[in-house]
Structures are given as structure tokens and as C-alpha cells.
């Protein structure tokens, strides 16, 4: 999906998105979902009185009800509470992945594009290798090497996104470098690093940012997939992907899969929606 975004990234208009006040209702809902998710991860205790770790064993596998919105799991724990308490880890791990992808990819792309020559050649080969290995396969291999945990899954996801960010950054830097105002700065005798910092970076990062927003949604899914395959945190962690993965062992009680899956889908969809709306109003 990051591929697509590199095609549809819009630029050129300087009118900030803030000026666009008219917000379609669906975007408003998306914002509400994201705000709720952020609130869940910041203060989960405000949204549920149940304990996500210690359940009431006698109340195991109850269906959704007024008392337990998403039902209870195999140890009698309130699933809604587990989803709410698992939000922080799900959201922060996706953030870690994005930061790794943007920073590492950005630096590689920046150096390759700005310095050119042998640096570009060497870095290009590195990016080629990362590109040639399917993203998810790369993530699986990396997470195996560094150990099964949600943070490690996030790192692996970030590593697998480095190549895409590096590529976009590099082409943006090359374009900006050739722009008239940068040429002019060179002619005026500006230092390379000053030009890099003042002119190239801000311009290039403008097209990387929407890609990063999309990558956030994608990372939630990739980390959930890794958790599904069993590469996540040990119990009693309750990341969304882990919850789906545990739930799939109890398909007779389908809410154990559908409730966390629904929350995941709603969040990623909202993030994608917002990112699309941002691009349109750019």
C-alpha cells in the first residue's frame, strides 16, 4: 500500500489543509475513532472497570452482553477491557515501526540522493536487496532473529519499510536538488549541510509525511499478522493481533476473533480515510 501512496502523493498546492473546514461526515467519524483509540491507549482505566489480566474463571467464554460488551475469553476476562488495555501496545508498536522506517529510510534516501556518487551506488544496492526480499518475508526473518516480542515485531516491520521510504526520499531529494532555488543557494556559496537542512529536507519530507501516515495503518496490520503467526508478546499481553490470534483457537466463540478484528479494521480504515482526506485537501 505504500507503493500506491507514492503514486498518489499530491504536491504543488501550498494551501494548507487546515484551511479546508468542510469535513465530510465520514471523515469526522474517522477522527472520532482515532481520538477514541488514542484515549484508550493513554488512559485505558477510564473506559473500563474490568481488569485485563485477572479474570473470573467461572465466567469464561460468555457472549457479548451489557456487562461484557465484547464477551469474555477462555480465562473469564472481559474482552473489551483486554482490547482497551491492548491499544497502547498496538498503537505504540505501529508508531515504532513508522519511526524506524521513516528515520532509517529517510537518512539512507537523503544521503544517497544528496551525496550521489559511490555513496548512492552502495546505498542503492542495499535498498535493492531490501526491496528484492518480500516485505513480509523480511519482517518474519528479522523478527525470528531478534526474538519474538511485540517490540521486536515492530522493529522488523520498520526494517521492512525502510526500502520504500529510502526510495521515495531519494527521488524527492534529487528533484529538490535540481530545483532552481537550491541551485541558486549553491551558487551563492551556501554550505552543503546548510542547504540540505534548510532547503532539501523540508521539501522532501513534505511527500514522505502522507506516506508515513499510511504506513502507520499498514504497520498495525503487519504487526497483527506477525502476532497471528505467533511472533508477538507472551501473555498476558493483549495487543489486537494477539487477541485475534488467541481467538482463532476458540472459533466456537466467534466474538473472540470478530471483536478485536473489528477494532483493528475500524482503526486502520479511519487512519487511511484521514490520510486520503488530508491529501485531497492538500
Amino acid at each position, binding site marked *: 500500500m505504500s507503493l500506491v501512496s507514492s503514486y498518489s502523493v499530491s504536491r504543488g498546492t501550498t494551501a494548507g489543509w487546515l484551511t479546508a473546514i468542510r469535513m465530510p461526515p465520514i471523515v469526522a467519524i474517522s477522527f472520532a475513532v482515532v481520538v477514541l483509540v488514542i484515549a484508550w491507549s493513554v488512559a485505558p482505566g477510564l473506559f473500563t472497570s474490568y481488569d485485563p489480566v485477572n479474570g473470573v*474463571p467461572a465466567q469464561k467464554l460468555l457472549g457479548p452482553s451489557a456487562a461484557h460488551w465484547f464477551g469474555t475469553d477462555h480465562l473469564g476476562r472481559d474482552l473489551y477491557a483486554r482490547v482497551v488495555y491492548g491499544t497502547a501496545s498496538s498503537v505504540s508498536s505501529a508508531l515504532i515501526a513508522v519511526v524506524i522506517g521513516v528515520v532509517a529510510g529517510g537518512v539512507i534516501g537523503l544521503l544517497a540522493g544528496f551525496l550521489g556518487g559511490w555513496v548512492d551506488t552502495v546505498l542503492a544496492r542495499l535498498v535493492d536487496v531490501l526491496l528484492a526480499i518480500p516485505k513480509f518475508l523480511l519482517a518474519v526473518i528479522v523478527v525470528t532473529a531478534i526474538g*519474538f516480542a511485540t517490540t521486536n515485531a515492530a522493529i522488523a516491520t520498520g526494517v521492512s519499510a525502510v526500502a520504500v521510504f529510502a526510495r521515495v526520499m531519494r527521488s524527492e531529494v534529487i528533484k529538490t536538488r535540481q530545483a532552481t532555488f537550491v541551485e541558486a543557494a549553491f551558487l551563492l556559496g551556501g554550505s552543503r549541510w546548510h542547504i540540505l537542512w534548510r532547503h532539501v529536507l523540508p521539501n522532501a519530507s513534505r511527500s514522505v509525511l502522507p506516506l508515513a501516515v499510511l504506513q502507520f495503518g499498514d504497520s498495525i496490520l503487519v504487526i497483527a499478522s506477525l502476532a497471528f503467526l505467533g511472533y508477538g508478546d507472551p501473555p498476558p499481553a493483549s495487543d489486537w493481533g494477539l487477541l485475534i490470534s488467541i481467538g482463532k483457537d476458540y472459533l466456537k466463540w466467534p466474538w473472540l476473533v470478530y471483536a478485536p478484528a473489528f477494532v483493528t479494521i475500524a482503526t486502520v480504515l479511519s487512519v487511511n480515510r484521514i490520510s486520503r482526506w488530508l491529501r485531497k485537501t492538500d
Partner: protein
Amino acid sequence: MTERSSPLSLSRRRLLVTTAAAGAAAIFASTTSFTPALSADDPRKGGDITFLIDSLGDTWIPNNSAISSFQGHIWGHVTDKLVYVDADGKVSPWLAERWEQNDDATQFTLHLKSGVTFSDGTPLDASAVVANLDIWYAGRKSEGINPIGLFPKTYDHAETVDAATVKVFFKKPTLGFIPTLGYHGSILISPKTIAAPAAQQADLSKTSGSGPYVVDSWKEGDFVTLTRREDYNWGPAAVGHTGPAFLDTITYKLVSEPSLRVASVQSGQADIAYNASPQELQSLKEEGFTIATPRYLGFVNGWAINTKLAPYDDVKVRQALQASINRQEIIDTVYTSDWKLATSFIQSNVPGATDHGDLLTYDPAKAERLLDEAGWVKGADGIRTKDGKPLSLTLHSNPYLATSRSIDELIAQQLGKLGWKIDIRAYDVVTYGQKVTYGGPAVPAYEVTRSFIDAGTVASILTNANNGENWFALGESDAKLNELRDRIAGAGSVEIRNPLLDELQKYVLEQGYFIPRTQIVQRIYVQSPRLTGETYNGVAYASYYTATISD
């Protein structure tokens, strides 16, 4: 699927299981009723079954794979053993018709059944048995063929007396030798296969055994299909049938999701689902499916405590731990009533196991008192501390037992109430093997899932004598344990040994060296009611040699 809940077939299966478990007299009585001469038009003959399994293991080199919880199913049908061990640990003749031993149990003579052949035509004679004993003991390490880990390390050599007689020599008394021959590692393989290089042995279709089935086709990580061997005529008398098997084919098919395995059996797409989630068993039973939760002979599921690691070097803390676990709640929450409370640190069906359930009762008041006495004071956050250190326990969930994580979570809740601080670590099989060992520096409690055939070997596993595994990191420091170990090893008969075993069980539990959780069921079978007559051996493997299927 029409006769899903036929009570008739259910009771017949029970009857067979009971028969297999009964004494010798009952076995011979039932033999006559169960083994009429099997003719080609025997109505019980025919049918194909599909067994859904969660893994088909790794390599198929017989020595390296025989103990695999998954591959053992296939080996059980493709190969035979010298003796048969039933679910109650009773040893009976199979390919060894009878045996003798000298007084100090250092020499054994095995008399083999005649006319037995491997599927490649090689006779299963004395020289074939010697070739197998040699490779079990030594393997071919440089080629990647491992020895069988639990084969007696005291083995010296074996020689053929005549075509049907083998004499086996040991360096030291080895009472456990004969039971070991019925263990899942001791499968008899054709000498031609044994002589083949490792890469060839790894191709299952090139391996020949003498079992009632032969490998028809297989694909790595996918399936193994077995077909009946028509000239098979040497089944173990203990299962009540010796002729060819009834079912035409058995297919072991890998389906990694437990819920999909069960759902496939429910919808009639397969006949047996292995390792179902315990939570589903109750409703499956109500739907009329046969549920089997055979217990293997071995240790119960529980922790071997590392007595070198503080605070578990303090006997009071260990005893408090013993009393802090609500074992009934584990069974009620994670398992079903098919599971049994632990009454010792060995399963209650092991000959020589005695009931020490009184030492394993849930007594939070006693636990709190012991912890108070040991100086662990409850803080404001509910966690006990001593000298500024929290009362912590790190649990490493055992990757070989699917329910291990759930139990760890539940125990963490139970212990948390009494002031323990619990960390749960769940590693994959590889990392677990690397990081989690008995008495490891960061492993206060090693979760045991281990079968054995003879209780006499237990004592030496617990200590470090004779290359033992030193489970409690005691070394030679506990004189009483060492004394019991030596007396058990030297016991010449079961009558002398059993009271010593009883004393050992009581002592280990009292000292809190071993903290049992529940009796272990490592193999769970959900079976279509159409399929009946299977048997379970001492290591809880299902054999469909005697099974039949109705329409």
C-alpha cells in the same frame, strides 16, 4: 455421520480399552473373542481414515524422530517393538516372546518371535535386533544420526546366540532395560535402512519397518498415507488381535489450527482431530464424539524448582508455593473433568505411584503463614518483599504443551493474590531450548512435560549421579535424596522398590522440590463415533491397528 451418537459403538470402544488395560488372564480371554481367523471377507475389514495432526515434525531419520510427539503416531503403525507397554505400565511380550535376566540385571536374553519380516523382505532376526540396539545406543553422531536419549547409557554390547536369540550385556545393573524396549524411541527398523546414509533415512518412503502398515506416500509438512500390510501377523497379544489390520489406509494430514481440526471432524471431513482445545471437549462430547484423553506414563505437569536460586533456596518459600496453587481451579478453568488432579509428582497410572494428594491441597492461609515466617512482608501494593527485593517468580511457558500459557496466566492470578510477583515468558521451541534448562541461572521453575516407562529411572534423573539431569540443582547436597536414589537403583525387585519410591515421592513433595500442577494429558483425541476399537499404549499414542470404521 448418520449414527453420530450411537451408544453401541461408544461402549464397544470402552470395552476394548478396558480390555487392553486388564491383566493377562483377561487379555487371553478376550483374544479368543476378538481374533477369529481374519478372512478376506471379514466385514470389519476395509475403510480409510484421516487423522488431523498439528505438525508432522522435522526429520524422519528414525532415531531422531521416534520420540517426536507427532511422528511417533506414524512410527507406531509402521514399526513394531520388542515388548508392549500398556496404559497402566504393564509390560507384555511382542516381538520378544520371552526374556531372561541374570541376578544382578547386567545380562538379558531375548527370545524372538519367528517368521517376522520387515517390509523390504529382510527377516527380523537376532542380527537385526543387534543392529537396532547398537544404533539406539550410539547413533552415528558424525552423520547426524543421534542416539536414543533415554536408552540405558549402561549398555555394553549385544550378540546373536542363534537366529532367534539375542544376548544383551550391560556395564552396570539395568533393571529398566526391558520396559525401555516398549518406549516410543525403541522402534525396530530394517538393517538395510539403518545402514543407509542419513539423507536417505530422512526420506520416509525409503524406511522399512515391520509394522501393520507401510508408508504409501508422503509429503514434507503435508501428509503421510499408510496402507495395510496384508501379510502382517505378529501384533501384540495384549491388544487382542495379531493378524493384519482392519482399516485399508490411514492418512495423517497436517492442519495447524486446532479449531479447524475439530471443525473438520465435526463436519465429517475427517475422523480424528489431534490436540483439540480442552475448552471444546465438553460440547463435542455432548454432540456424540468420542473424546480420549489418555495419560502417558511419566511425570505430571509441574515445576522442578531450582534450589540454587534465591528465594527458592528457602524450604519455607517452596512449601508456600506448594500450598499457593489452586489445582482444582486449573482443571475447572483450563481443562475439563477428564483431567485428574496430581497426587504425586508422577502420574497416578505409573506402577509404583502413591497418593500424596494431602501434600498438594490449596491452603492459602498456610502459604501466607509460611511466607510471613520466612520474612516476606506484604507491601502496600500487595507484593511481598524481603530486604527490598520482591517475591518474584519467572515462569517460562512450556512450548510443548498447548495449555501451558493459559495455566501460567491462571497461576499468576492465584499467586498474585498471596503476594507473589509473577513474570511469564513464552519462547518459541528454539529459544526455549537455548534459554530454559533445569537449574538455569534465570530459571527458578522448569516446567516438566516428560514421559518415562519405568519409575525406577526417576530417582537418578532428579540428581546428578550417573549423568543424571540434576533437576533441582541440588548436586550431591541432599543426603536423603541421594540415599533414596541409590537404594532404588540397587533394588532387585518391585516389592523392595515400591516402598522406597513412596518415600521418595513424599520427600520430594514435602521439600517443595517439585511443584505439581495437574496430571498431564499431552495427547488429546477427538474421534468420530463411526471409528471404534483403537488402543492407547503407555505413552498415550493411539493405535488404529485394531480399529474399525462403520458406515
